[in-house]
């Protein structure tokens, strides 16, 4: 057991949260981050879906990696990812239909999410199944916390709620003239918020700043 969670393996889990974050450092998977972060609930479900698909596609591809002919590896990866996405999509429709409606095409578009292909190509094709599985979970969580963070700010300031709970109304700020901010609901603000996260992150760790 200690072997499974060695320091090296834990690194695989924690690195994508900050220093190798798929969204803020590698700048992958941006489109869905902008599209599904109006409310927290869809953002959370999206983050969970991507994490599951990333983890299991990494696991499957890594298990098969020696048997996949190099020339058709992209197609094999796509088939695995697509299968998993369809399973996740069906599960969402069965159990959380309203969220699945809100996410609409973006669940299907997980297939084309660059994070998945990137991890499969860069990691799963060259590493053992267990490490690949952890790497998938790590990257999914790295993607996920950005989504949840952005959606928290957007839902709080744009709709005055947190996870559907009308916190602003309960605090009574509307009576003193507070108004929900309409820009927060629009996609440009998601981009600006991601930019702010990148800004904070890079001013804290100078290593991430690209040399000119």
């Amino acid at each position, binding site marked *: 057991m200690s072997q499974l969670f060695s320091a090296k393996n834990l690194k695989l889990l924690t690195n994508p949260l900050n220093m190798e974050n798929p969204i803020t450092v590698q700048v992958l998977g941006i489109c869905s981050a902008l599209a599904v972060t109006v409310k927290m609930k869809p953002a959370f479900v999206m983050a969970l879906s991507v994490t599951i698909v990333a983890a299991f596609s990494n696991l499957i591809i890594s298990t098969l990696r020696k048997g996949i002919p190099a020339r058709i590896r992209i197609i094999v990866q796509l088939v695995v990812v697509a299968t998993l996405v369809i399973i996740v999509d069906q599960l969402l429709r069965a159990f959380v239909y309203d969220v699945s409606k809100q996410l609409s095409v973006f669940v299907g578009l997980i297939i084309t999410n660059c994070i998945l292909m990137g991890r499969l190509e860069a990691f799963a094709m060259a590493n053992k199944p267990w490490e690949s599985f952890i790497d998938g979970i790590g990257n999914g969580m790295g993607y996920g916390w950005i989504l949840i963070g952005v959606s928290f700010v957007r839902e709080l300031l744009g709709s005055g709620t947190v996870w559907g709970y009308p916190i602003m109304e309960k605090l009574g700020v509307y009576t003193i*003239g507070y*108004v929900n*901010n*309409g*820009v*927060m609901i*629009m996609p440009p603000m998601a981009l*600006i918020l991601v*930019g702010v996260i990148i*800004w904070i992150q890079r001013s804290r760790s100078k290593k991430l700043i690209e040399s000119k």
Partner: protein
Amino acid sequence: MKAKKLRQLIDRVKPQFQKGGKLAKLHSTFDAFESFLFVPDRVAQNGAHIRDSIDLKRTMTVVILALFPALIFGMLNVGFQHFLSVGKDVAFFSWQGFGFGFLKVFPIIVVSYVTGLGIEFIFAQVKGHEVNEGFLVSGMLIPLIMPVDVPLWMVALATAFAVVFGKEVFGGTGMNVFNPALLSRVFLFFAYPAFMTGDKIWIAGLTKGQGVIDGFSGATPLGEAAAGHIDKMPKFIDMFLGTIPGSIGETSTLAILIGAIILVATGIGSWKIMVSVILGGLFMGGILNLWGANSYMHVPFYYHLVMGGFAFGAVFMATDPVTGAQTEKGKWIYGFFIGLMSILIRVVNPAYPEGVMLAILLMNVFAPLIDYFVVQSNINRRLKRIPVKV
């Protein structure tokens, strides 16, 4: 004598702010106040220098001066419109009206300056830059393009957004892509549409509706036109003089014209941009006149010059030297498209009664592209003159 005392005081505290001093971190704040009070005594010793009496501080001061007619008129008009709405008979040029307008407008100016300069100072400290005068004009422009009843916290929020995301993230004064003042307005426009559009917000106190006389409409000429009430629009001369509802500083084309003369006479605002914006507006207005698909399109093309924020945008926003086109030919193209897009958005898109703000921001994006092509075409033209193939 007073000045000498002040000088001595500054010299006494100066070491604290220099390297190794206790307050060395605040040195740019100190520099800002020192150079605000006294002209720096240091001069450059070597290298070639262009000697000119104009610098950023003087440029900004002239623009502020040029804004004054519009500001004073705006205060008068705020009072006049308010007393009109409650049915009190107060002359346009009256202390009562001006006093009311002053009390309404002055807080907005204070909030805009305090927020904007506060953020500029903070960023200057953190980055170790000098504090410069970049915000002086924006801080005055922001109140002038707000509706008078805008809540003050919204002004503060919009100013903060514009300064941080419009200016500081790009590297501060002189590096911004978008006009910060317009960015603050566009932020409010999309964030709080209920406070930035409609018929009620342009006159102080009208949203509360206390004592408003029956049948009084606070709609701007643009509002009336967008709603299809062309017959209700004020007379041309009223719109030119500016005794109409609207944002604080934008209503009077006459006051803006005085500002334009100051800007052009001192060479600070580009007359090419102003003229080309007007040409673009007239051109599009003329086309829509010819098209004439609805009653709005029949509004005479020259009316567009005195309606809404067109004149204000052309004189004070489009001519911003940082965000506008730099090349002389580019200024014509840049300005022409601002005018054209403004009228097109204004008349054709029902969602936006006014298009000047969006048109200028759109062309801000294209200004570097325009400059690039102007410079490239010049290079190509001159390359052709070379007899030998390069």
